[in-house]
């Protein structure tokens, strides 16, 4: 297992290097002079030339790339043009907000999706199966922003059960320690506030988790149908294993690889920032951070934001690969 892990981690190096090159190139391909953007349209040519020299923009591209690489490696993601603060400092809370929402959405998606898929496969062609798969089909095809708006209209405005905007009641802000409000409120022993934080998570969480839930349900049903028809399931039954254990222990573990793949991809996508959902629900996450940077042409933020998201995506894929080996011992021997 250790050798497999090391091999997988070693494979990250070329991936990350390639990614940094692509991000670097994209920014250079975008028209516009960074010096002009930083100094403004009315800057004098002398000032621009001076900034060019101090930023190293006159150097050949490979020199620029290596100094860029050196900065990233040292944890320096650049400075935001808008706020004039170090990106590495201000990006943290946004990431934490997105991360918290993603975890909540994915827990919802996995719990409902996997169980619905299992039940559908176990009772194939029953009314439950048909209903669940119809809902899954609707869930996959429904635009997330529309679902979000409908949720707000029904549960926030009409029924007034849940708050529609933000991470916590604005009049009683959470004292941020880690940036994860669930954790922060528990650490501060503010359980009334914890409840409030959970209430704020419900609507955006469900809106964001619906598509992953539907995809997971469909993949689970397909994988479980196949696993339930296999010989070792008959063996397990012939041993006298309880049906619940047959399904959840023997079949699910075998059907879990494609489910895991989908969970990994969906988690990566949600962590990349669901711009629409975060905007609708006023969620101060990475998606909105990037969105505002794009509107303000804040190139350093865009560049670093994309890089951070890409790194997260790669890391999740690493975790998924390592989990593959746990669920299928055959993988690590290949």
């Amino acid at each position, binding site marked *: 297992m250790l050798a497999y892990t090391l091999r997988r981690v070693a494979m990250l190096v070329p991936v990350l290097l390639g990614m940094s090159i692509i991000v670097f190139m994209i920014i250079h391909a975008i028209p516009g002079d960074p010096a002009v953007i930083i100094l403004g349209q009315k800057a004098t040519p002398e000032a621009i030339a001076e900034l060019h020299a101090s930023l190293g923009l006159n150097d050949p591209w490979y020199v620029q790339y290596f100094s860029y690489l050196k900065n990233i490696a040292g944890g320096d993601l650049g400075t935001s043009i808008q706020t004039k603060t170090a990106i590495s400092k201000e990006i943290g809370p946004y990431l934490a907000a997105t991360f918290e929402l993603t975890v909540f959405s994915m827990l919802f998606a996995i719990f409902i999706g996997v169980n619905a898929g299992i039940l559908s496969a176990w009772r194939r062609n029953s009314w439950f199966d048909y209903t669940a798969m119809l809902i899954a089909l609707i869930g996959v095809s429904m635009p997330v922003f529309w679902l979000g708006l409908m949720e707000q209209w029904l549960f926030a405005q009409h029924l007034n059960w849940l708050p529609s905007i933000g991470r916590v009641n604005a009049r009683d802000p959470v004292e941020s320690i880690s940036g994860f409000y669930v954790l922060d409120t528990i650490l501060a022993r503010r359980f009334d506030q914890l409840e409030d934080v959970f209430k704020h998570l419900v609507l955006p969480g469900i809106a964001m988790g619906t598509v992953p839930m539907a995809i997971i349900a469909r993949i689970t049903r397909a994988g479980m149908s196949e696993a339930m028809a296999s010989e070792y399931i*008959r063996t397990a039954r*012939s041993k006298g294993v309880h049906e619940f254990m047959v399904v959840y222990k023997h079949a699910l573990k075998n059907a879990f690889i494609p489910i895991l793949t989908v969970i990994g991809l969906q988690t990566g996508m949600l962590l990349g920032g669901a711009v629409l959902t975060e905007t609708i629900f006023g969620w101060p996450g990475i998606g909105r951070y990037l969105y505002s940077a794009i509107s303000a042409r804040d190139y350093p933020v865009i560049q670093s934001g994309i890089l951070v998201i890409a790194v997260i995506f790669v890391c999740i894929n690493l975790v998924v690969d390592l989990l593959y080996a746990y669920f299928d011992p055959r993988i690590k021997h290949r």
Partner: protein
Amino acid sequence: MSEWLEVNDLKTYYPVKKGLFGRTSETIKAVDGVSFAVRKGETFGLVGESGCGKSTTGRSILRLAEPTGGTVLFEGQDIMKLGKEELRRQRRHMQMVFQDPLSSLNPRHTVGKLLEEPLIVHGLGNSSERKRSVREMLEIVGLPAGFASRYPHQFSGGQRQRIGIARALIVRPKLIVADEPVSALDVSIQSQVINLMQDLQRDFGLTYLFISHDLGVVRHISDRVGVMYLGRLVEVADKQDLFSRPLHPYTQALLSAIPNANPDAKRERIVLGGDLPSAAQAPSGCAFHTRCPYAMELCSKVMPRMVERERGHVVACHLDQTGNEAIRC
């Protein structure tokens, strides 16, 4: 106790659903009224072509396939009447060895876990006792005890089938239904596994229901043999009787197809015309009449009953009941 396992009129039908509303348009009669008895400690061989229902018969007896009708008396207890929980507990005494040892062993579990699970399920022994009996069992089937930490894919076919046998045997069952246990193995490995199964039968006092399409293997291991055709038994006899004096034309055709090691031996090979008919539309009367070289008018109309022609030799055929045709041997 002679009639230790008694199968009476066992039927397992599968509906075939077609069309938009899933109407049951036809029924596949995989097993259609099979009756036989197995004595304690013997090996009962069940042979027939692929698709004749021999595997389904084996599974239906253990209720791994739910039978449509009939009774199965195991030590006087009707297996068909058992509730879910009772059946689960009963499984301890009736185990199955499957054809393909790789697909029948959960690829995600180590051999140790695979072997230990039945013990956990049936609450046999504590953790250290279970671990010990796993090691013992591996050694009994001729594998090093250290193999417990490996996964099924790391073994050869023969080793896997030994694991499959160990898995079945670890709860010390009384009956083992072996469904084509050696057909997936090389011939040289087949004999090892067959010999192992015979040793185990002697040591543990097992009763085997041995399902196979390989007449050579069945001849070697069985005490009595049943021949199946299209969901029905056509002939049951002691091994010697069946192989030396087959009475049913289908059995005769099957036996004539066994390759002979002596190239000079002149034998007439009975080649059956046509294919195995569909189990969904079984021929009327005797199911074999479409391919039988001796078929008479009667055969297509009346289904022959199982009749004890000689002592312990039961056959379902109209032939000498009407005396129309002498039976060739």
